[in-house]
């Protein structure tokens, strides 16, 4: 099943059971239904689906107003960039609401697509979800595979409180990655562990799980056993499980495909260096070239074989 089809299916399942919910956004129930993300939404009687105006700032305020009044809602959005118009509400309105502990009266989820597929022009450089959420310590979740999609949507989509859940445009038409198992996931659904190995710890951020998974398999095929983690939430994540793993492996490869200068992976690396257990570390991140403001492929490319070969030569 394709990544988008699976997420659409899970959204439908989670919404169908919910009482008193308003679903809104531009073309949420018309035309392509946000490229298929919201196709076929079914709601209980008394709930609402609104094909809204093109007013991202005020639509965000609308969701917070509903929340203040005890009505849950989801604001679906075609592009994370559009949410830049709502930053006043994401910071100021959310701060007011949570300062008075009013956020648990209802659920408000903003569900944008991170347009990271490239060739969109200068406006599509925003793909660093961690940085976006960091502005007001907003709970946020990236969906990268079948397992985390199930866990995050079930636990968070309509849970009381506010959060942003995002998917990758780049992965929309790809077959959804289905890891064999989840070895560990924390209560907040922010850190997932998919494999355990003694030689190396691989950790991915933002939407770099596909590359991390590929790298993991390349190491495995060469007889090197790695642990594989993905950090889905950029904010206030407790990565104790990763720190424990590194005590044994002592070697890390961290991946982060964010375009901006500040990347969440750096926070983890600082913690791991401070722990004093590291013997080697590799950070794989985007190489930002002069043409980054123009239409480009915008993909973090990795030479998996080369990395594994260098690793083998080193050890």
């Amino acid at each position: 099943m394709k990544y988008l089809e699976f997420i659409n299916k899970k959204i439908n399942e989670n919404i169908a059971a919910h009482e008193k919910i308003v679903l809104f956004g531009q073309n949420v129930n018309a035309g392509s239904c946000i490229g298929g993300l919201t196709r076929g939404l079914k709601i209980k009687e008394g709930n609402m689906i609104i094909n809204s105006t093109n007013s991202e700032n005020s639509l965000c305020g609308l969701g917070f107003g509903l929340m203040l009044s005890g009505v849950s809602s989801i604001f679906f959005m075609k592009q994370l960039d559009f949410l830049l118009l709502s930053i006043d509400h994401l910071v100021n309105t959310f701060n007011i609401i949570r300062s008075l502990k009013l956020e648990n009266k209802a659920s408000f989820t903003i569900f944008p697509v991170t347009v990271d597929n490239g060739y969109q022009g200068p406006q599509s450089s925003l793909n660093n979800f961690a940085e976006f959420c960091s502005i007001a310590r907003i709970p946020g979740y990236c969906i990268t595979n079948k397992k985390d999609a199930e866990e995050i949507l079930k636990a968070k989509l309509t849970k009381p409180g506010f959060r942003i859940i995002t998917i990758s445009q780049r992965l929309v038409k790809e077959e959804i990655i289905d890891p064999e198992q989840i070895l560990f996931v924390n209560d907040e659904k922010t850190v997932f562990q998919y494999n355990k190995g003694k030689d190396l710890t691989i950790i991915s951020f933002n939407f770099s799980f596909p590359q991390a998974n590929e790298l993991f398999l390349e190491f495995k095929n060469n007889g090197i056993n790695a642990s594989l983690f993905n950090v889905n939430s950029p904010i206030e994540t407790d990565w104790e499980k990763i720190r424990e793993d590194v005590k044994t492996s002592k070697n890390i490869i961290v991946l982060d495909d964010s375009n901006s200068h500040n990347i969440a992976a750096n926070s983890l690396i600082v913690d791991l260096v401070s722990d004093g257990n590291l013997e080697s570390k590799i950070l794989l991140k985007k190489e930002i070239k002069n043409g980054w403001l123009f239409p480009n492929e915008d993909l973090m490319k990795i030479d998996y074989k080369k990395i594994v070969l260098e690793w083998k030569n080193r050890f």
Partner: protein
Amino acid sequence: MNDDINRQIGFDIIKIRISQMMINEFYKEGKFKIPIHLAFGHETIAVSIDRVMEEQDKILLSHRNIAFNLARGKNFKKILDEYYLKKEGIAEGKLGSMNLMNPSKGIIYTSSILGNNFSVAMGVALAQKIQHTKGIAIVLGGDGSMEEGSFHESLLMAKSLKLPCFIIIENNEWSMATSINERRCNIDLEKFTSAYEIKYCKLSGNNPIKYIEELKKMREYAVKNNEPVCIEFNVTTLGDWIMKHDDYPKGKFINYHAGPAPTIELKTCPAIIKTSEQDPVYALKELLDESEIIKISEEIRTQMYSEQI
């Protein structure tokens, strides 16, 4: 009977005035750590809206919210304590002035960001519609906030979703130190709202009986038709002064905006600041004898001093 009502309305208006004058004096003495936006001149609007609000109605305010918090909360001491950031304050000292709200009195949201509250109010109105409360959302902004894009977006949303609400503009013509003609072209709000087919009502003169009567009619219209109503009040935020600055050697006329109002003194009795209908206390002469206004003023002062405020 009407005399009793007029006296009670007059009492509420003058009490808000004197409460603000006292805060102004404490402000001058440097007793507050937080910024406060006083609302001299807004008293009649606040009292009128308070009188019109039904139990299910919700109100969403801006940074200049003091008159409404006094009108709805009717507890000066708790608001003062809030300004001192004391635990005894109306929000336990957690909100201060610019975000002060009082959910038990229907003040469910207050924002100091210009135009921020319009769209939050649209969410509240939509929730009321879904929940069949028969209540309306009332949101307030000034002539500055209607310059924000969110004002247009929210009007559009209110009309498109058929939301029962009041979108109220307190037009005092000033945004900080610039008057409308110094910063922008005129906006004819009646024409502007008619473009959205939104009902518009303009009120001025500070007659509370007239204000209450009109607001009641507008509320009935909003509830009956599930429609927004835009109400523009002509208001003068009192406390203007001549700012002396190197850039203005002859001084520049400035409408009062924030901080203590330098030209307003507590000793002014019966609490009149301006001898025109721009001053809600002066305008009370339409309802009450001057001697009665002075009597009420003295009554309030005695009461407040006995409470050791």
